[in-house]
Every structure is written in C-alpha cells, then in structure tokens.
C-alpha cells in the first residue's frame, strides 16, 4: 500500500494510487446478476479528470463544497475523486433520507455543486423549497428525454484538457458528514484530510488490503464505514471495490461467489439474514451429512480458539466457504448492535466477523476486534493511535467513553457551542457508556445520549423524528429514546417513545391514536416511534420555551417505568 505519511490530502493519495496501479481493476459495478461496469485505475482516472476539468471551468474552486447524493455505484467514487482533485470539500449525504430532509441538509451545508442520482433529483425537484437551491446540479443516469429542471446531465458534464490538481493541507476539511440534524440541530461533522489518512493507516495496519482484494460495497458510501473501507482503504492499496446496486439477499449471496469477495462490511440485519439462510440449508442436510458438518465445525472451533486461521477453516469447511466464494477473509460489522451469537455462529464456520465501534465524529472506527483471540462479547481494542478513557466510572467500571485520536473531527459545521460541548480539552465525549475488561477490550453498555441505532445501522435522533408530529392536537409532545429515560445496560431492542401532554379535560381517544399512527407512517419503518406515554404534567421549559429534555426524561424516569409505554 501507499505510505500515507507522505501525503497531505486524500486527493494526493488517490492520485498516487491511480498512477501506481494503472492496470489493476479498481471498480466493478453490478446490478443484480448483470455486470455493468469494470474499470481499471487507469480507466477511473480517464473518467474522473474530464469531470474535474469541467468543474474547474465552472469555477468550482479549492475549498468549495460538493454534495453527493447517490446510491453505491462507480459514479459516486469518480465524482468524489474529481472533487478532491479540485481541492473541494465533499458533503456525502444519505440517499435514504426523504427529499425534504436532504434539502434541509443542503441548505445547511450550502454546496456549490450537487451531484445526484436521477430518481432522487426527480423527487427533490418537485418540492417547492427546491427553488431555493443555488447549487449547480449534475444528475446521473437521467433518461434521455427527462426534464432535468435546469440541472446538467452528469454524463455530459466533462471537458477536455488536463485539470489543475489542487493539493490541500492535512488540517483542511476533506468532508462534511452529517451524523444527524434533519429535523433538529444539524450536526455536520467536519472531518479533515488528516482524520481520514490517519484512520486509513490505522485500519490497514490491522486489516490490510492488497491488489487482488475485492471489497463488496453495499453499506451506503455516504456512511463513514463504507467511505473508508469501500473507497479510500482499497484504493490506496490497489484493491478493487465491487458495487452491487441491490440489497436483495439472493443477489448479495451470489455476489460473494461471482466476484470472490475478500471483505464485506455489513449491517447486523444482513448478517442475520445470511445466518438464517445458512441455518436453513444446514437443516435440510441428511442426518449423516449434518453429523459430519457438526464434527467439522467442532474441529474448526478447537483449531481457531486462540486466533483465526481462515485458510485452514476454508479447507476444513470447504463447502460452506465455497458459498461465500472461497476467498472471504472476514465480514466487518459496526455502527449497530450485533448479537454475539450471530458473530460466534460465523466464527465457528471459519468466517470471522470483525466487530468494531466508532462514530462519525471520530472518523470511522475507534476500536476493532483484532481476532487474537476472537471475542463476540466486545467491540474490540482501541486502534493504533487511539486513546480511550472511561469518564466517571461507576462501581462496575462503567462510564462515558471519551476518545483522543488524530481521527477525531475538527468541529461541527457552524456550531461552536455544540463543538465545545462535544470535544473537551481534545477529548471527544462519545455519549456511549462502556468499560474495559482485563484484556483491554471495550464493552459497551448503552448510551448516555438521546438516540437509537437500528439493526440496519441507522442513527436515529428523536429531534429528527418529531417534525412528523407537528400540529398534533395535544398540548405538547416530545420524543425520547426509551433507553435515555430508563437507562439500560444493553444495546439491543432500542425504541423511540412519544410523550404526550394532553390539554386540560382532553381524553386520549381512538381518533388521536389513529392520527399518531398515521403521522408515524410518514417515516420509513426504522424511524418510527414504537410506543407512547401520556404524561400528566406540563413539560419543563427554558426561558425561550424550549423543552428541557433532560429534566423531563429524568422526571419521567423517576415517576414511571417502561411498562407505562403503550406499544403502537
């Protein structure tokens, strides 16, 4: 891999990678079972530079911002490289948000350029508030006769001639990544080139990529994990990224085999789906075959007790591994709670599931399991260069995890107050509760912060969900993460609850319940509130009439327990 200490910015490192491995394949894009694109590093460069030149001709200057709103595909990475080549700052936005939410983040980040996939633009451009968007818009994959509402066609937005490469300093902003804030206070994490280069160095020190490695990219590239292990990491090592433009389980399984995948980062939902599929197959085996399989699994468990031996496991359980393509080194998971039993299931088959812990504010990961030995009950050890502390530990040693690392973001965009409350004396206060065990592994025990993380790896903040309930016919309402009101030392089964304060003499009627259900359905399933509580007191408020959420949560936590929640 490249020596990342030699480079001052992501653009420089990526540029060097493109020159270093011109003939290696860097990208494969498949839609279901159809391969759409296969690019070498040299092809990638040929596609990106005319876009960079066109951006420069359109006066996109170093330090200016370009947002990307796309599903995982080759044009995402090509566009990102073109932006870095111009010295721009990338704003990767979540394509799963609603068009209205995306516009709110665009309003906050004010990018000069927006690069967006057609189906997303079609939805966004229909909104009246889209008229306020001042960015130059480039739309990918638009049908030939489509009305682009003044936007440019990405495929045509290219100019001949060598663009000028603009280097950036290590402490310059590389990306602005939103960790929340579509309804409440926008949290745009400003991550520097140093954050990414150091993170990449630390991750590849433990889990290297090399030319020939194929990484299956199905987590959204706008997410910190895929941006790092599905773009920057593979590229600076000459490896290949495989984009699959569907999440359908049958095609995900086929992609492992067809493309002989080496690594894949998956959310718990998908890992559990793979587990279910394997268990169903095992259940169909004849008693004799099942007996033999169980013996081989037992033998593999014994052999891999101290550390993973993937090559040996592959020989021992060849048919299981053939189902993953025969080259799989590990599955990577993180960003959401993963059941230890699922991780153990795969490890026993010789497929390590690398569990880790991180947050957007800290780049990608703070801890990772080094598989020496495999531990399903922890989120691993701090990565090289990461210092972690447990603040104010209780009698069991559990306290808030604080991090000090070169990977910690510079600040929240346009929010010095929130930045000062989050990074104190150089330590990032994560809001997560944890403790270290005697082997130096971090274990997590719930959250201090008011949010939940879904099985699909989505961070959901109550404030961002509240706007669906604007105008609800009650005196006041508020949404909490249940674990915030009633602290739990578990990260599983998280849910949001709606707290209602009714008007004097108002009854909780079926009509009100229907209204709540209807409004809740405005959100995709993972963002909905799971239950409600009717609270008998007025909400405590500040002088400026903002709800004192902490006080309300504390009062509720003392007065009632979880059984008071009525499930929706």
């Amino acid at each position, binding site marked *: 891999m490249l020596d990342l200490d030699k480079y001052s910015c992501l653009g420089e490192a990526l540029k060097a990678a493109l020159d270093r491995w011109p003939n290696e394949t860097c990208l494969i894009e498949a839609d279901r079972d159809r391969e759409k694109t296969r690019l070498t590093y040299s092809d990638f460069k040929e596609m990106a530079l005319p876009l960079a030149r066109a951006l420069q001709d359109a006066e996109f200057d170093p330090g200016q911002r370009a947002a990307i709103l796309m599903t995982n595909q080759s044009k995402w990475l090509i566009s990102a490289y073109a932006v870095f080549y111009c010295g721009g700052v990338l704003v990767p936005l979540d394509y799963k948000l609603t068009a209205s939410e995306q516009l709110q983040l665009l309003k906050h980040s004010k990018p000069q350029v927006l690069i967006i996939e057609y189906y997303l633009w079609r939805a966004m451009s229909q909104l009246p508030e889209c008229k306020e968007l001042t960015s130059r818009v480039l739309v990918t994959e638009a049908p030939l006769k489509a009305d682009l509402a003044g936007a440019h066609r990405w495929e045509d937005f290219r100019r001949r001639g060598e663009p000028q490469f603009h280097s950036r300093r290590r402490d310059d902003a590389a990306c602005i990544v939103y960790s929340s804030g579509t309804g409440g206070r926008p949290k745009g994490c400003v991550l520097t080139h140093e954050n990414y280069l150091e993170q990449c160095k630390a991750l590849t020190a433990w889990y290297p990529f090399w030319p020939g490695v194929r990484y299956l990219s199905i987590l959204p590239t706008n997410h910190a994990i895929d941006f790092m292990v599905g773009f920057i990491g593979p590229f600076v090592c000459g490896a290949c990224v495989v984009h699959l433009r*569907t*999440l359908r*389980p049958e095609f995900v399984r086929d992609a492992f085999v067809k493309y002989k995948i080496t690594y894949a980062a998956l959310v718990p*939902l998908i890992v559990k789906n793979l587990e279910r599929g394997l268990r169903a197959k095992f259940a169909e085996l004849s008693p004799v075959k099942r007996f033999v399989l169980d013996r081989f699994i037992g033998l593999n468990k014994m052999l891999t007790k101290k550390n993973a031996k993937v090559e040996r496991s592959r020989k021992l359980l060849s048919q299981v591994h053939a189902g993953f393509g025969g080259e799989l080194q590990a599955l990577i998971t993180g960003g959401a709670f993963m059941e230890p039993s699922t991780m153990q299931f795969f490890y026993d088959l010789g497929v390590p599931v690398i569990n880790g812990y991180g947050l957007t504010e800290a780049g990608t990961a703070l801890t990772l399991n080094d598989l020496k030995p495999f531990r399903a009950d922890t989120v691993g050890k701090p990565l090289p260069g990461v210092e972690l502390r447990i603040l104010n530990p209780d009698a069991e040693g559990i306290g808030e995890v604080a991090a000090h690392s070169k990977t910690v973001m510079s600040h929240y965009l346009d929010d010095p107050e929130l930045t000062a409350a989050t990074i104190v004396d150089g330590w990032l206060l994560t809001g997560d509760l944890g403790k270290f065990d005697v082997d130096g592994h971090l274990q997590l025990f719930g959250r201090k912060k008011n949010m939940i993380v879904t099985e699909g790896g989505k961070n959901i903040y109550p404030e961002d969900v509240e706007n669906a309930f604007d105008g609800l016919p009650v005196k006041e309402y508020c949404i909490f993460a249940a674990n915030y009101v009633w602290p739990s030392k578990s990260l599983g089964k998280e849910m949001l609850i709606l707290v209602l304060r009714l008007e004097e003499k108002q009854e909780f009627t079926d009509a009100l319940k229907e209204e709540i259900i209807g409004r809740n*359905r405005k959100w*995709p*399933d993972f963002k909905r509130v799971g239950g409600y509580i009717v609270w008998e007191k007025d909400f405590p408020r500040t002088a400026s009439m903002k709800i004192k959420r902490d006080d309300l949560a504390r009062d509720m936590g003392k007065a009632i327990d979880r059984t008071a929640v009525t499930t929706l």
Partner: protein
Amino acid sequence: MKMDSNKTLDDILGLASTHFKVPRERLTPDDDFFKTLGIDSLQALDLLTKLENHFRVELPDYELQGVTDFRTLAERIQARL
C-alpha cells in the same frame, strides 16, 4: 394491454398473503405492510422480487424507498407496467 390498477393492487395483496402466510382478509390497501406482514426491510425486498416475477417488470430497490403501504406500492408498479 396495461393492467387495471385495481387488479394490480388486488394481485399484490394476494401475493403478499400467500408469500408471508397472512390471511388475505386481514390485508387492506392502506395497511402498513411492514407491520401487517411483520417483515423487515430485507423481507420487503423479497416481496418486491415476487412482484417482479408476477408482473414481469423490473423494479429497482429504490421503488420501495419511502413506501410503506400496499396502495402506494401498487401505484409504483402500475407506473412501470
């Protein structure tokens, strides 16, 4: 010939009922199918595959984005028939 939109909706309800083993009479067009069928987002994609095979039309994953009820799903499919 383009299929009638009511027939599209009816076929979707029938397929969902068969595939997820939920009595047809319990399903209505405006149901939140995640809740009524008790499925997660991957199982919803599985349903989309079944619908593709039935209607002989290709439905990208994004057609399911933001859709939670059978009626809207039927509209999305109808637009592609």
